[in-house]
């Protein structure tokens, strides 16, 4: 994968570059500000962007704003945002840029190299990855319409939101892939998502309850 990385802490930036290179990926550019990020993405057209949220000059959410702006310019550009906080509002804003090919992870997750790189790959491939902490909290506080989902279906939705494939969900829950598809079908039906929404139904399912949550 050809990756552009934005992270203002030099030490962490170097670590991430060597981590991604270790797994055989090509870091086109590693920058320290949101403005540079936008410039290099426009120049290099990477396969995926990985960016921190809090960046210079204001140290608020410049990285997130840049990610949203880049998605506005190139709606299919995969972006993985690393945040120090499980801020559901930022997540919803990010997902609202179009669904597929986005990720939102707690920054600590990069400490597990294999899973982090897997998440980058998932996002680069058009998948959606949402941090397990956020998903767990949101599901714990969900009421309607997710109230109609069974516990098992909730588990499936949670794993789906975390970016797992059907096979991965089956493995995690120790059930067959066929059963997983059945559960997913039930989730879609209960959330009123129809087949003509095609490939994005997974994302829409996750969005459905994120939106419910933040209202």
């Amino acid at each position, binding site marked *: 994968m050809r990756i552009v990385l934005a992270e203002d*802490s030099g*030490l*962490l930036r170097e*670590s991430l570059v*060597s981590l991604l290179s270790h797994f055989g990926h090509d870091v086109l550019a590693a920058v320290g500000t949101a403005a540079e990020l936008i410039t290099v993405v426009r120049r290099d057209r990477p396969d995926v962007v990985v960016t921190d949220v809090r960046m210079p000059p204001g*140290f*608020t959410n410049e990285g997130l704003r840049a990610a949203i702006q880049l998605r506005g310019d190139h709606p299919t550009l995969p972006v993985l945002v690393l945040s120090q906080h499980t801020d559901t509002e930022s997540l919803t804003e990010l997902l609202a840029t179009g669904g597929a090919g986005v990720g939102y992870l707690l920054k600590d997750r990069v400490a*597990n190299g294999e899973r982090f790189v897997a998440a980058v790959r998932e996002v680069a491939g058009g998948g959606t990855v949402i941090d397990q902490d956020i998903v767990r909290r949101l599901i714990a*506080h969900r009421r309607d319409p997710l109230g109609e989902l069974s516990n098992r279906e909730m588990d499936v939705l949670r794993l789906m939101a975390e970016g797992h494939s059907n096979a991965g969900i089956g493995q995690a829950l120790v059930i067959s892939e066929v059963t997983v598809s059945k559960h997913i079908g039930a989730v879609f039906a209960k959330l009123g998502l129809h087949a003509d929404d095609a490939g994005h139904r997974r994302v829409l399912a996750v969005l459905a309850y994120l939106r419910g949550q933040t209202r």
Partner: protein
Amino acid sequence: MGEGGMTWRSPRLLRTSVPWRGWLYVATGAPLGLVTLAVTLVLTGLGVLLSPVAVGLAMLVSVGLAGLPVGAVERRRLRLLGDAVAPSPHRPLPRVDVRSWVRTRLRETVTWRELGYTMLLATGLWPLDYVTAAVPLVLLVFVASPLLYALFAGPGGLVVLGVDLPTPGSALISAAVAAPLLVLSAYLVAAVSALHAALARMLLVSNETDDRVMELVRSSGRMLDAFDAERRRIERDLHDGTQQRLVALAVMLDMARMRAGDTPELAEMLTRAHGEATTTLAELRELVQGIHPHVLTERGLPAAVAELVTRSPLTVDVRMRIAGRLPSAVESTAFFAVSEALSNIAKHADADRAWVDGRTNGSVLTVEIGDTGRGGVDPAKGSGVRGLADRVAAVGGRVKLSSPRGGPTVLCVEIPCGPEGR
């Protein structure tokens, strides 16, 4: 007793608006009392008749609650006499179900005081109001009787309100008698309306010692601005320095672990070191969050409370009517109060739901945190409420707690946030 009670004996009464306001007060009080009487009689009658079915019982309960709407109307009607708008003395219960609303209201003493007032109004007060309102009108007619005589008198004279006025002279005499009485009736109107209003104020307007509303601390400390700035600085230092270094350390340990595959002992050590680093990271994140939540800094109080609620094990209804940003010390104090209150509720209240209701009213931010738990919180027993009150006091605010045994507990935090409050 308000101003009305002091002025009704004054000889200058006639030059004030008191008789006019008083007349409006009794003239509207009479029909209100009559309607109240009719409605309560019908509800009680039907309720007794239908008491074998649930509807009948509900009607009887609604009679018990009849004081609520009457009280609400009467508190507003007091404005006719120049009173300020009296706030409802009931506990706020936003968006809870009907059953718990009824249960709470039936347990409040103010509900029964309102019912008492309603009974007074429906029996003794409205006839008194009626007569008081009618007297000046009757007298006015007699004062006008010479005019009426001139206009309408027949050959046998004129009958005015049942009084026979056979000659123009008798009409003049009746006017001469009625005129001073009309002036005196202004005093009657003022006195009766003052009496009625005094009863209404006594029974319907909260004097805050009732319902065990405790004001915990009142202080004018101004230290919190400095504390708040310091917390932000610490949060930022940890975030931009320590946290980033720890993440980098964990990444490097992880890569070392992956490369140490052929020396199992080293791999094992590195796995453990990596585990320690990630645990520390998670703990540090919680710590930083507790010091000063970043959502609060970036998006303000409503967003931070919404975020906080997703961390709470309770079902919490949040309503925030706060436009724009408040001074940072106000926001972080209010946030701390909500956070502390919710964690107290989760720990001790035995509640299944809670609510947070925040609003700014001019220069004061008011946040109420309530729960449907068992109540009986005693601030003297060293609960977290004390520390919360201290912290609120440090920004010049105050905390009130209402927590009767059996619940519900409502904690009300008021923090000055306007230009003059700072």
